[in-house]
């Protein structure tokens, strides 16, 4: 696991540097005590220090073997990509199209892409997850959900 932790350490070090840079723009101390930048500054230093320790441990210390499934195969990443795509689509379509239609499409896509369930089961589960959930929350519990251009 040396290489993954070296990369992770570098990423955290860059993040710490960025936080330190942003913290310098804030007020560090006031006459009454710490200002908005106080905690951020010290957190960035601690995070940077820990990142350096992680990098050094990965370079010079004992390291466990990388698990066989650390990297997924191509299909595995495609499946994760499908879920990510579904959620991104939800973000962009939820308000214009409304909750019911958006979730119906998203659920049907996921069931087809990841489960290969029968057509009827796909439609039933997608309806329950979308229109059914909408009914329970919007109509019964009065939790407003987006209705979109079609009104549902």
């Amino acid at each position: 696991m040396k290489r993954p932790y070296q990369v992770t350490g570098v990423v955290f070090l860059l993040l710490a540097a960025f936080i330190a840079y942003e913290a310098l723009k804030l007020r560090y101390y006031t006459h009454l005590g710490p200002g908005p930048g106080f905690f951020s500054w010290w957190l960035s230093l601690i995070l940077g220090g820990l990142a350096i320790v992680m990098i050094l441990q990965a370079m010079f210390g004992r390291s466990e073997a990388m698990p066989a499934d650390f990297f997924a195969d191509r299909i595995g990443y495609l499946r994760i990509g499908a879920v990510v795509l579904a959620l991104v689509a939800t973000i962009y379509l939820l308000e214009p199209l409304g909750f019911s239609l958006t979730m119906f499409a998203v659920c049907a896509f996921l069931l087809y892409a990841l489960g290969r369930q029968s057509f009827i089961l796909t439609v039933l589960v997608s309806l329950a997850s979308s229109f059914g959930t909408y009914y329970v929350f919007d109509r019964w519990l009065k939790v407003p959900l987006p209705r979109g251009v079609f009104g549902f």
Partner: protein
Amino acid sequence: MLESFQLLMGGFATALQPVNLLFALIGCVLGTLIGVLPGVGPAAGTAILIPVTVVLDPTGAIIMLAAIYYGAMYGGTITSVLLNVPGEAASVVTCLDGYQMAKQGRAGPALAVAAIGSFIGGTVATMGLVLIALPLTRFALKFGPPEFFALMLVGLSLVTGLAGKSLVRALMSAILGLVIAQIGIDPVMGAPRFTFGRMELLDGFGIVPVVMGLFGIGEIFLNVERRAVQVFETSMSSLIPTLKDMKDSAWPIIRGTFLGFFLGLIPGVGAVVPTFLSYSIEKRVSKTPEQFGKGAIEGVASPETANNSYANAALIPLFTLGIPGSPTTAILMGAFMMNGLIPGPSLFKDHAQFAWAVIASLYIGNLILVILNLPFIPVWVAVLKTPYSILMTLILAFCVVGVYSLSSSVFDIGVMLGFGLVGYTFKKLDIPTAPLVLTMILGPLMERGLRQSLEMSRGDFSIFFVRPLSAVLVGIAALVIITSTFRALAPVKGADSQI
């Protein structure tokens, strides 16, 4: 004391009327169902269901709302154990070991122990309300900003109890949580921090999208990657806890009860702190700490007990002093006032029958909750047999509803997705996510406590040492940090030793 006992008996006479029993039962059912829905926690659930109680008389309304409150606390446990999706922030800790137990075919014992622990914790907290509420509440109100800061410091010091093999990785996760908590408006001066001009970031990241992403969505990514067919792929063991399970859970339940009770008395602590603290303490005192995170029943028993004990104890400042200690008790206070009742010392004088009826119903409601939920465990566990693609679709739909309903913003869905990728990556790299959640919640409380204390003392740090309570808590935090550092340098039993 004798007078209190007599008044309590009178309260039971009212609470045991069939109609009030029915209200408690309905409240427990609705609360559990609401708690099961990811993202809809006790506060939102109680608020959503207030209209249901408007048509009831004041006693019935408050009995039902209180039942909804602690029912929702238990409901959050069910999805945490079965699906690794915390129903609300306080259930995050249950995911660590409860879900692992479910994957080993032991979801039944996990849920059963959680139900029994919740019953014991809730009942003891209610007894505390009857016997020692007023003097304890006065003590808890001595907690000013310095004591609050010191208490949060104790909580943060116990982060080391959440570390797995590597203290460095746990600390990085904890610091990241503190950094994330910096995003938004500075709690003292009101200046925007790390918002980059975005309106959505003025409130920071909500804890619900973060935990649902880290735990729920992250787990979904891991399962779809390995093409999981079901949540667990071993055979189901018995649904009933074994004698060993009950023996192992006994002391954690006792400790969780008293920890949750004490913290429930302090306004502003929140439900998450007792659960994380109890988990850390159990891991610290356990003879097999390496089992935590792999399905240790103590990791379910103590936090769940602390959770329910806290929920009932949080009603004490509300009843005795009229001070709501949490968002949910603030909503309950609103419900009190809607029904023409003012919580506080005068409640026991002017509406004694109502007050004692509600207290008696807390006993009864806790009993109803355990009687109701234990037989349903096979039903909940049967959920695990659902094909994962179908389960995952339903989880995603509820997660989207849960986060969207918080502030009607699709930005929160994006936050959930982002943290889902973080959770997936952390799992691959064996970086624990629990420290991140703990510090994200405690960080702002600690910062506010520190800065308010220093404003009180005009910048003098000795304020934390001259006040006795604060000094004791700071001492405890220092002791925990020192012992944790020494422990981290020694080989950890049963695991590789790494700093």
